[in-house]
């Protein structure tokens, strides 16, 4: 699943059109989704972002292959072009700093970003937004750092009063391709496919119920060893389980020896 977070409805609109996202009422937040993507509109500011992301991720807990992207507009110093897409490698929030891991190649401009409490009318040293830090903090409880990205589009040079809803829609619309590319790059970062199929996992779990906890971990380890060494199908795990403790231990010993030979 791809989790997209925007602060504003206007930021979400072009994405909903492009990805054909449909409104979903499962949460008390503006939520859109299709088979692969879920988008939440958090509302502006720290508290809104923190609550919306926590609610979203608590509602649908991310899996290992999932990613999260915060996309939206930001104010920036004048050396950043209006309309330029920025990929954030450092979020500065007071004396705290957060670092999403960028482990893929890309052609976007990378930069640090300051997360602030109110729209800024004074030029800062870095681009500014109001949600990146709480989104990072909430999401990093669920995602590894390389599964998150912060894509910001420069909307103004710290003149927030000049930013219009139509302008925001246009800025986001002009960068759906940047988002698309980012999604595929982020998704392609090395992921470990599960070692065992669901059926295999179930068989293992049933088999383990006949043994103690530490014997169970030894079975897991030996099967993992066997699979990682690409030895193919593992031996059947449904022999007659002896009643005596001693015989069970012997059975286990033999199985581990076979798997790790």
């Amino acid at each position, binding site marked *: 699943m791809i989790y997209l977070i925007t602060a504003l409805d206007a930021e979400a609109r072009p994405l909903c059109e492009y990805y054909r996202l449909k409104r979903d009422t499962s949460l008390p937040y503006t939520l859109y989704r299709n088979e692969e993507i879920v988008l939440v509109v958090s509302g502006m500011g720290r508290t809104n972002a923190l609550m919306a992301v926590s609610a979203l991720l608590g509602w649908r807990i991310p899996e290992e292959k999932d990613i999260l992207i915060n996309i939206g507009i930001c104010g920036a110093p004048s050396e950043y072009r209006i309309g330029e897409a920025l990929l954030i*490698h*450092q979020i500065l929030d007071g004396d705290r*700093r957060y*670092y999403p*891991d*960028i*482990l*893929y190649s890309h052609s976007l401009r*990378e930069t*640090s970003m300051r997360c602030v409490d109110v729209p800024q009318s004074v030029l800062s040293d870095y681009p500014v937004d109001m949600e990146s830090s709480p989104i990072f903090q909430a999401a*990093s409880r669920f*995602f*590894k*750092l*390389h599964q998150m990205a912060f894509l910001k589009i420069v909307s103004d040079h710290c003149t927030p009063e000049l930013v219009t809803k139509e302008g925001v829609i246009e800025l986001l619309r002009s960068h759906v391709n940047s988002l698309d590319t980012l999604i595929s790059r982020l998704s392609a*970062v*090395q*992921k*470990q496919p599960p*070692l065992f199929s669901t059926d295999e996992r179930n068989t293992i779990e049933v088999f383990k119920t006949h043994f103690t906890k530490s014997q169970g971990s*030894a079975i897991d*380890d*030996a099967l*993992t*060893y066997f699979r*990682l*060494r690409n030895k193919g199908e593992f031996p059947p795990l449904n022999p007659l389980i002896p009643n005596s403790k001693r015989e069970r231990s012997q059975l286990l010993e033999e199985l*581990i020896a076979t798997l*790790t*030979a």
Partner: protein
Amino acid sequence: MDHPQTQMIRRKFADSQVILIDHYKEVFNRPAQSFAAQSHSKKLILARKEGTFLHEGSQYSDGFDYQQFFYASSIMGCLYDCDYCYLQGLYPSANTVLFVNIEDAFEQLRPYLGKDTLVATSYDTDTLAIESLTHQTSMWLDFADQYENLYLEIRTKSANIKSLKSITLNPRVTLAWTLSPQEIINAYEHATPSLEKRLGAVVEAITLGWKVRLCIDPVIYTEKFAILYTELIEQVFRTIDPEAIEHLTLGSFRMSQSHLRSLKKLRRSDVAFYPYVVRDEMATYSEAIETHILETLLAKATQYLPKERIRTWQRQS
């Protein structure tokens, strides 16, 4: 930022993204990093070390009976990516931290140099692998030149010994190459030079007059262990004159239980999941397998070298 080494390295990476940080731990010690994912895109963190560079040698390694044995740690992390490496269990990150203030390591070492002291400069990393970037090995060699009691061991899998060519020979410095069968390199020692390249570097270092030690350590036990490792010893001594090396070190895989636990969590390699025997917090092969490994290798190695020049690591029972 102003340290000459920082500037030199930044010049080499003129096109790279630079992120200013306050302390290396801000990035290196972050929670929720993925060692496995980062291994494919390692970042370099330049920092100034505040504490000591020197640590006493551990029970997992051989101190060669010097009066004092330290290892110096000016780099955290390694360019190479070996599946059996305990760094994966030690560090939360696959990135590399390079401490640029190596001169402080020399200052910290100076008071000890009244006695014979061995310093392993490449103990929990491979310094030679990034020598062209850091020049730290050259700096160690220059420093060692001035102190008669200082012995260095530079352990490596690198094939790049360019930096040694311009340095005056020092008989108190040992270059130690870790060698493995090519099949083991392919399976477990990612991003490292091939056996052939390593052997080429060994030959070159010997020709230049450096003292060389060879390490077949850690030996990874697989069903083909005996064939792979006896062939390795044959290949090594077909290429290298046994008389030209100081020692051959043999040792089977071993790791602290806590590092092994972290390695398992990464689920990267079968090495972590072998049914080791854990005693006194140390995971090793069973005594029978360990003995089998050593006997097999010793039998082969003694065809080329007298036993006195073969060092072995085995758990003290």
